[in-house]
């Protein structure tokens, strides 16, 4: 039997845990060279290694909870997504989905030899994770890790001079080699992680583990004694990386051109006329997505279309969208249905959320019509995951028209399908569902325009306040009038620009070199909204609700215009 002692450099790869340390719904606390980690495995098996502090108040994330899809900080409930570390929800800002797009600092994780490996240097390549001749990943058998109150340097120098016995009790590991990885924890402590090159027989397993636990434990005691350790050292002050402002999503530089390459991983018929697509990143990691979000999809024919993302919490290995074939398609859905196949590469925007979900409602009523199900389903999955009270009513033509039936089925009795209702029956049913309003109830509706109009009218008649009624249209059904002529004054830029008939404010701004985020460009998604300081707006969008339109403090620049001769914008 040979014994090999190994330890990496400051920028190299180090084991920080055993694979078996990361049990279901647990957050493991690890440390390397003074940097602390919260390490957790999601229900989909992904290993997250994050800096061990909440972005908010610096509390250790390792005292938080792993709910299988997200890590929730114990202090103020900030939720961080599996895979990205992106903040998905801040309970103190229930209505705010977009402004916070920060991420926990994450480190790369690799599982090998039954251990979890990471490196402090994101530039370190995977090839540098030394492949040991003596260890075979499938056979390697990790031992109980042993922590020492001694530096890794001292420990290594001792280990190199020490004889380690061989168990006589297990024939199967007689010829096994032993590799001892020394993990520097901080300036005063280290962990020795032993791995045998051969897995013992099942009946000998515990005895082998006990043998090496005792053997290495005795070695530990010897090293600590000769190093003069009297008492457990105080942990060295833990190190933190300097804060970095990470901004993704709706930054001022984001516009329609900013795009991420994705590949079609799966394409399937999820319902009559509805094709599901799973879009995975061509390289790297997709951005965090929150319920209600949409992405711009850049099609091979250069068209750009918006699709809501169906993903459940923590599901960030691919974006899932549902595309309904529109019989009057002008090249969006017809191209996706007719031409886009598995393996094709497309571009998508970062996810944006103009339809954010509050999670502080005493009850959430979700109503979807047809393919309007997609954002509503993402919301239902998020509420379901957190165990919050909700019901989802899905108005759909027939059983065969129900998209994502498997996801809906998983939500159980919270979902009701209303099949094959005519327009009058739909209105009657909506009136029954959207009955009396009580405090802190919230309604979310997405579907065809007549249904949305009916739902909003019913809510209004039953005295639901505008702030409790959330909606998203597929398209803007209002008759657009671009005949007015006016000027816009940009208060912060001290620039005044004319807007002529047929031009939109958005076009004028972009032509003047002002960086504006936009997406649907028809007054549906809310991306291009600006604050209005002065002037009488001519709202032509379907994003703002009636109260917001009446107060006139915000304006969608893609379609809305001015009734006054001048608008002063907060730009």
């Amino acid at each position, binding site marked *: 039997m040979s014994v090999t002692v190994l330890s990496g450099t400051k920028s190299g790869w180090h084991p920080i845990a055993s694979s078996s340390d990361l*049990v279901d*719904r647990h957050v493991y*606390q690890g440390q390397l060279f003074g940097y602390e980690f919260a390490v957790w495995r999601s229900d989909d098996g992904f290993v997250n290694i994050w800096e061990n502090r909440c972005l908010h108040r610096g509390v250790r994330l390792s005292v938080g*909870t792993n*709910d299988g899809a997200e890590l929730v900080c114990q202090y103020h409930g900030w939720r961080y997504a599996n895979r990205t570390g992106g903040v998905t929800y801040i309970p103190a800002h229930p209505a705010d989905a977009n402004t916070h797009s920060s991420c926990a600092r994450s480190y790369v994780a690799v599982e090998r030899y039954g251990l979890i490996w990471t490196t402090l240097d994101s530039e370190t390549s995977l090839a540098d994770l030394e492949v040991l001749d003596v260890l075979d990943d499938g056979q390697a058998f990790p031992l*109980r890790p042993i922590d020492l109150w001694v530096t890794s340097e001292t420990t290594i120098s001792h280990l190199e001079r020490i004889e380690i016995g061989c168990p006589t009790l297990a024939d199967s590991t007689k010829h096994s080699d032993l590799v001892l990885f020394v993990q520097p924890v901080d300036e005063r402590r280290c962990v020795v992680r032993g791995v045998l090159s051969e897995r013992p027989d099942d009946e000998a397993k515990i005895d082998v583990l006990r043998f090496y*636990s005792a053997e290495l434990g005795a070695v530990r005691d010897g090293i600590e004694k000769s190093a003069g350790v009297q*008492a457990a050292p105080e942990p060295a002050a833990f190190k933190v990386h300097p804060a970095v402002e990470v901004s993704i999503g709706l930054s001022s530089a984001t516009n329609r051109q900013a795009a991420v390459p994705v590949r079609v991983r799966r394409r399937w018929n999820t319902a009559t006329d509805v094709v599901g697509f799973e879009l995975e990143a061509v390289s790297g990691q997709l951005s965090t997505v929150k319920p209600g979000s949409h992405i711009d999809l850049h099609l091979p024919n250069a068209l750009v279309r918006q699709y809501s993302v169906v993903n459940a919490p923590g599901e960030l290995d691919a974006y899932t969208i549902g595309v309904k074939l529109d019989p009057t398609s002008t090249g969006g859905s017809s191209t996706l249905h007719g031409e886009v196949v598995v393996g094709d590469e497309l571009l998508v925007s970062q996810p944006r959320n103009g339809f954010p979900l509050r999670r502080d409602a005493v009850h959430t009523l979700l109503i979807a019509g047809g393919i309007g199900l997609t954002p509503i389903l993402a919301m239902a999955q998020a509420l379901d995951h957190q165990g919050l009270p909700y019901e989802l009513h899905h108005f759909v033509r027939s059983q065969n028209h129900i998209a994502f039936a498997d996801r809906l089925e998983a939500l159980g009795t919270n979902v009701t399908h209303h099949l094959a209702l005519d327009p009058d029956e739909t209105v009657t049913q909506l009136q029954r569902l959207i009955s009396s309003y009580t405090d802190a109830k919230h309604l979310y509706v997405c579907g065809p325009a007549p249904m949305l109009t009916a739902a909003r009218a019913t809510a209004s008649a039953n005295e639901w306040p505008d702030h409790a009624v959330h909606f998203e249209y597929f398209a803007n059904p209002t008759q657009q009038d671009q005949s007015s002529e006016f000027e816009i004054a940009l208060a912060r830029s001290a620039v005044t620009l004319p807007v002529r008939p047929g031009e939109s404010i958005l076009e004028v701004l972009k032509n003047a070199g002002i960086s504006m985020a936009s997406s649907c460009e028809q007054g549906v998604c809310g991306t291009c909204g600006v604050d209005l300081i002065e002037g009488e707006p001519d709202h032509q969008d379907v994003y703002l609700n009636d109260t917001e339109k009446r107060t006139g403090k915000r304006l969608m620049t893609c379609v809305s215009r001015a009734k006054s001769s001048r608008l002063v914008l907060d730009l």
Partner: protein
Amino acid sequence: MIKLYDFELSVNCYKQRLLMSILGVEFESVLVDFFPGSEHKGEEFKKVNPLGHIPVIDDGGFVLRDAHAILIYLAAKYDPTGNWYRTSDPELIGETAQWLLFAEGTTNTASAARLHDSLGYPFDIDECRSGAHKLFRVLEEHLWFREQEGLDWICSGDHPTIADIAIFPDVMLSEEGGVSSQPYPAIRRWTDRVKRIPGFVVMPGIFPAATA
């Protein structure tokens, strides 16, 4: 109804609240101004407990002191399943007693360090912390091998016992006394399991785990 002479921040009082909650035993807290009033050291309280410490219970006139003794009494009397303190099995009685004595050790080291750091008790803090780490190393190895054998709890068998209750808060709050639980991953996983016992209740510094 059982009266518990109680202080919210006391780990030993919490052990009683936790077990009674799990067993569904109703009780009434008689709040003792342990800090800053030191009511437990006053003449009036010495009539309840001449040793001047809490917790103490009064169960219909039967008065009992000392946290781990109270756990034995409550489990023996109020757990009809007999799982929390298995008096039918001599080995398990011995094992449970062994780990209850171990819990005296964690209370006198880890929880003493916490009293030093948070309430200013004049203990030898280095001794408290080193003592706690020595015990935690033993507990870590014990629980690590329990996991290897597919077992979840401190004593043998597939059900938690009062030994789990007795050690749990000393471990959970050790950080407040400067004793990091980071070197003890098997202990940390076991605390998650304790938190998932039906009837689990929290105290300041001890939060629920995610459902498994």
